[in-house]
């Protein structure tokens, strides 16, 4: 019986070959392709990262320094994954951001692995909490103090847009008038065409970073009576461009300088909105917490179903610590009250009730 007889008519379904896009991971919750932020703790909160094709708006802290750290991590992760990078900025030279990316380090693995987690008898309420230091390294670790020297081959993957780069700008004739915005959108279009990212089969993606969008350098002329709709129109156009190509956009806005209605409109438009608040602004909270600032997930849109995406364990407010080398996000908690003389008892108790954001692990 040498002839090959087909016994069943079963045919294996061959999936059309999907090129594996560099730097993305399939999300467990949503089955969207998620792009890592570079900060592993942020990835853990937002379900693996930003969905491919989405627009993320970061509302900067008052001096913009922590937002800048996040954009550096975002671009550095892109450099590691050999993605295309586009940095746009009017506040400073966009090349400065690309030349000062943090370099990757491999942290030594912890040797004391907790093998048998004993049942906690006294602190049994802590049993269900997720262990923060997982031995599984989920992404790259970066060191902010050492600037990354990009290999020559990767320098072709970079693009910038900024004041010194673009020549004479023309004002638009339709409702979108701002020349800076039109020029930025054109530059992004050209970059996408150059790298063929809208063909649908490209194995790579483009990370776009726009720093301090909406700062006075952008010249959005606002009178008291009308809002500058160029701001929101540009965000919407950016979202439309990014959605149909292999690209992700991260835009940081100085929300304290802008009209609050503009900020709330941009929250409606964007897919993911993260707000950073430095504790330098609020001297009362600084005594209570040992973090340097608060990170709030104002919005995480679900692009494939109705179910809302809440952060890890249901919280949307986290704290972050930024040292010279590292940036880390962690859950808020009250630090152990060892020195009770520092803050007066009335102060701490009233703020303890009102800061509903801090998640105390003890509930009676």
């Amino acid at each position, binding site marked *: 019986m040498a002839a090959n007889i087909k016994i069943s008519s079963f045919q294996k379904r061959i999936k059309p070959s999907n090129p594996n896009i560099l730097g993305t991971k399939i999300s467990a919750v949503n089955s969207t392709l998620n792009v890592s932020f570079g900060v592993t703790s942020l990835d853990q909160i937002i379900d693996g990262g930003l969905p491919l094709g989405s627009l993320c708006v970061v509302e900067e802290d008052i001096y913009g320094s922590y937002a800048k750290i996040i954009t550096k991590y975002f671009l550095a992760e892109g450099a590691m994954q050999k993605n295309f990078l586009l940095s746009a900025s009017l506040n400073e030279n966009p090349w400065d951001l690309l030349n000062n990316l943090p370099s990757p380090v491999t942290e030594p693995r912890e040797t004391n692995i907790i093998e048998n987690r004993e049942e906690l008898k006294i602190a049994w309420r802590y049993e269900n909490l997720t262990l923060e230091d997982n031995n599984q390294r989920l992404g790259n670790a970066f060191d902010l103090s050492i600037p990354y020297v990009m290999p020559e081959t990767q320098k072709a993957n970079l693009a910038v847009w900024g004041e010194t780069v673009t020549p004479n700008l023309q004002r638009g004739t*339709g409702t979108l008038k701002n020349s800076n915005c039109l020029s930025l959108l054109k530059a992004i*279009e050209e970059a996408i065409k150059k790298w063929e990212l809208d063909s649908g089969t490209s194995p790579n993606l483009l990370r776009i970073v726009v720093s301090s969008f909406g700062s006075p350098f952008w010249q959005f002329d606002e009178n008291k009576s009308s809002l500058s709709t160029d701001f929101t129109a540009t965000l919407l156009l950016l979202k439309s461009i990014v959605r149909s190509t292999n690209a992700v956009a991260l835009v940081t806005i100085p929300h304290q300088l802008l009209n609050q209605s503009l900020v709330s409109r941009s929250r409606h438009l964007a897919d993911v909105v993260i707000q950073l608040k430095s504790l330098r602004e609020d001297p009362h909270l600084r005594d209570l917490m040992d973090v340097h600032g608060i990170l709030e997930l104002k919005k995480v849109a679900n692009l494939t179903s109705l179910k809302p995406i809440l952060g890890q364990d249901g919280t949307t407010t986290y704290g972050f610590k930024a040292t010279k080398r590292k940036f880390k996000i962690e859950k808020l908690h009250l630090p152990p009250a060892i020195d009770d003389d520092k803050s007066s008892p009335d102060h701490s108790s009233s703020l303890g009730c009102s800061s509903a954001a801090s998640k105390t692990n003890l509930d009676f």
Partner: protein
Amino acid sequence: MADTVMKALMLDKIQIDGKSVLIVQHSDGSPFVHSLLTHSARQGRRICLVSFSQSIGYYHNVGTRLGWNLNNLLSKNQAVFIGGLHTLKNSFQSQCPSNPFNFLFNPASCPLQALFLAIESVILGWIEQPFSVVIDELDCLLNLGIEPKEVIKFFQQCHSLIQTYSNGSLVVSIGVTPLDKEITQCSTLLSHWSDLILTERGLQTGKSRDLTGTLTVKWNVSPFSEQHFHFKCFDRGVKMFAPGTAVL
């Protein structure tokens, strides 16, 4: 998953023909737009979906979880999608006058005319059968630089379409924030012209795993009632509860 939205809105007993629904969303009212789309699809109505800030893929993905297939309906010509992120991108790349978003780049005396004509031409093909016009996030037009009076005029034109062809229904959703005067004024004005107003808010104290938000249902015509509900969004639908009963 029992979808209790239609029962709460009393739309299982009251016909939606000839009526206009306004969804005012303070945080995220998209579950109700999708529920109304599902309801229309299940009843076999023709759907004209107009969107300004989402792509077809998004409505299709959410729709499949809720039980209807947008791509199928599009191919059978029972649904038409106007606008969307793809058209917005095309308006930037190639500026052709029939694109509804062309007003962004070329001056026009009546910016929303192309959009309205597109909708009207679709409807005129469907006069005999029941149809629904669903406009998602009308406030995006304000974000794109159109003046509020033009947006109101556009809404009035769509509303008159429904009143002329009485087997159609209009669903409009508009996102507001209390700080934004223009949009709040628009939504208040539109709510006077609508028959059913759904006001969706998030919870006042933050986010919760038990509830997604609150909904106020107000009928301006026959039942003349106003009711409050709490709702929770699941992967496959939305469940409505009387206030306080979500955890029972």
